[in-house]
């Protein structure tokens, strides 16, 4: 039985071993291979998570029902490894051009992904909490990585203080839920007792605050722009995608496991729906006013959180839509942040003015960036459109039609600021243009793969969705939802 448990968590064990190996290699000053080893770690984790073995394809629980493995959990593991892998493509080149040879970051990146996998696959609030903390601690360090850069310091400190505060809310919520339900494990919670005790609403409210902070939903979003614009650019992309994906999936699992068994679930779904709407409106409206590209993408990531929250209102179907959305969002946003990093000079903020005419001087760069931006805007035939389609269709199935319509309107309005960047790149000129000078080939390869994936997902969605259903035994969810 115990051996079986170990086999189930092999992807996580492999990634932890990679992280330890990276630490050791750094200590013995074997530094040039670190990005490569981290990359092998991520690829290996994704491959091990594939349902190659008998019985790995169905979702099940391991270690006394502490953690999900197989099925959807495998898909999530692959998603998070992919976000780490593509961050790597941009990271080593970015650090070299900024003349900041920091090598500890590779081990931190790997441990952050370990935390995310634990967070997203947890079936017990204690494991959720451990995953959340592993991930958050690594992210705080990433934000504060450039020690002589005031903006990076500000980002790290802000993220750490606010994050620690949100963690306080989260753990207090867990304590109240535990007090009422008699267990932290979703499989053995006593929901009738939880409801009777009156601890359901305060506990749930506090846990919601913790999750909403991590996904930067509207009233808890204030840290997002400062942290993303102060962090090293490829790592900001990692924060915006991987950490949000993990938090959203944990949030969705939490809602799906607890809400069906309680009477007040309608109220809680309505609260999340309203927050989703406010987040979409706020993110899109404020993003329009931004001059700095990183701040613009930070507000756009707030808006995207709104769409995923809308999906979470829609129950199990919405969770699937949210997973797919975060998958596509990870591909396009890491690409967009990575390309901003590619055009960033030492110690300079990426400003929209400098990008004017960049697409004419460097057509391939312009074309790839346009693919990412069009996809973020949700314009067909790119993958971003498919992911938005899944989200809105799941909201409509759950009778949140009005919210879905308002979401579509904000999404169309939000297309403005993505397209403005494309217009600047191709149709305007400037006195002080930025140049794209990468120090190695990896960022170009990364951009190429990401752009190709977005095009393929967008053009042939059915081919991929049926594969997803088949590989991860998702009850034909994606096949049915594909238009």
């Amino acid at each position: 039985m115990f051996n079986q448990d170990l086999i189930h968590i092999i992807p996580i064990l492999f990634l932890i071993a990679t992280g330890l190996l990276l630490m050791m290699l750094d200590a013995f000053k074997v530094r040039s291979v670190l990005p490569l080893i981290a990359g092998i770690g991520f690829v290996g984790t994704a491959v091990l998570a594939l349902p190659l073995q008998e019985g790995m394809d169905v979702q099940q629980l391991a270690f006394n029902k502490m953690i999900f493995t197989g099925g959807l959990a495998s898909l999530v593991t692959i998603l998070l490894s992919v976000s780490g892998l593509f961050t790597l493509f941009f990271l080593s080149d970015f650090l070299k051009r900024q003349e900041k040879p920091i090598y500890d970051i590779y081990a931190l990146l790997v441990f952050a992904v370990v935390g995310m996998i634990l967070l997203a696959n947890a079936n017990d609030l204690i494991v959720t909490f451990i995953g959340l903390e592993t991930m958050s601690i690594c992210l705080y360090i990433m934000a504060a990585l450039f020690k002589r850069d005031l903006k990076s310091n500000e980002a790290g400190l802000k993220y750490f203080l606010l994050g620690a505060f949100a963690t306080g809310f989260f753990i207090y919520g867990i304590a109240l839920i535990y007090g009422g339900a008699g267990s932290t494990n979703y499989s053995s919670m006593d929901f009738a007792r939880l409801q009777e005790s009156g601890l359901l609403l305060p506990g749930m409210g506090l846990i919601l605050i913790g999750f909403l902070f991590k996904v930067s939903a509207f009233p808890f979003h204030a840290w997002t722009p400062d942290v993303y614009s102060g962090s090293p650019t490829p790592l900001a992309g990692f924060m915006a995608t991987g950490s949000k994906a993990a938090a959203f999936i944990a949030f969705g699992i939490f809602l799906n496991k607890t809400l069906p068994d309680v009477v007040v679930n309608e109220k809680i779904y309505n609260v999340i729906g309203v927050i989703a709407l406010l987040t979409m409106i706020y993110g899109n409206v404020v993003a329009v006013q931004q001059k700095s590209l990183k701040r613009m993408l930070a507000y756009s990531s707030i808006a995207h959180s709104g769409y995923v929250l809308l999906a979470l209102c829609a129950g199990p179907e919405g969770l699937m839509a949210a997973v797919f959305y975060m998958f596509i969002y990870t591909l396009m946003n890491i690409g967009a942040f990575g390309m901003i990093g590619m055009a960033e000079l030492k110690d300079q903020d990426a400003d929209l003015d400098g990008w004017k005419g960049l697409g004419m001087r460097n057509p391939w760069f312009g074309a790839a960036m346009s693919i990412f931006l069009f996809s973020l805007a949700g314009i067909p035939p790119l993958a971003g459109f498919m992911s938005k389609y899944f989200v809105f269709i799941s909201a409509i199935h759950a009778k949140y039609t009005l919210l879905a319509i308002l979401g579509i309107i904000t999404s169309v309005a939000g297309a403005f600021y993505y397209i403005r960047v494309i217009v600047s790149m191709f149709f305007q000129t400037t006195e002080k243009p930025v140049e794209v000078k990468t120090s190695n080939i990896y960022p170009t390869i990364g951009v190429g793969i990401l752009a190709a994936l977005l095009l393929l997902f967008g053009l042939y969605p059915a081919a991929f969705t049926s594969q997803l259903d088949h590989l991860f035994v998702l009850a034909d969810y994606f096949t049915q939802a594909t238009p």
Partner: protein
Amino acid sequence: MALQTALFWIFSILGIAGGIGLVINRNPVYSALSLILNFFSLAGLYLSLQAEFLAVIQVLVYAGAIMVLFLFVIMLLNLSDEPRVEGFDIARGASFLLAIGFVAEMLIILKDVVLPSSPEKFTYGKVESIGNLLMTNYLFPFEVISVVLVASLIGAIVIAKKFNY
């Protein structure tokens, strides 16, 4: 039973007093010392709930290790009194109101909470039973916590390391 109730009130009042002292003192050293008072009274409360292990850990780890570190840092940095905040602005007023509202809301909800009565014989607090649980039911979280520790260790080194970029 009367003794237990009396101890509960003593430790609760001491704990709350420590918490208030932590917030209102202008001198960081006094604040830290108030926090130690708060930790000790919490340990007392744990003891009266028969959670001996938790009480010992509370004193050893929090009141012992963490607070000594706090005090060292405060004294090394040679912090002076916190400046008194002058005037009033809307943001501070709004956050004050929000905090008051939040506390009031929690109090109103928690007033009506009906907790299930505790079992007659409570045995979870002993070192033995905690060790048992950690090695059986909670084996997985117990082991993966080491990842958090390693990650924060690397983080502390990255932040503290001497380099100029």
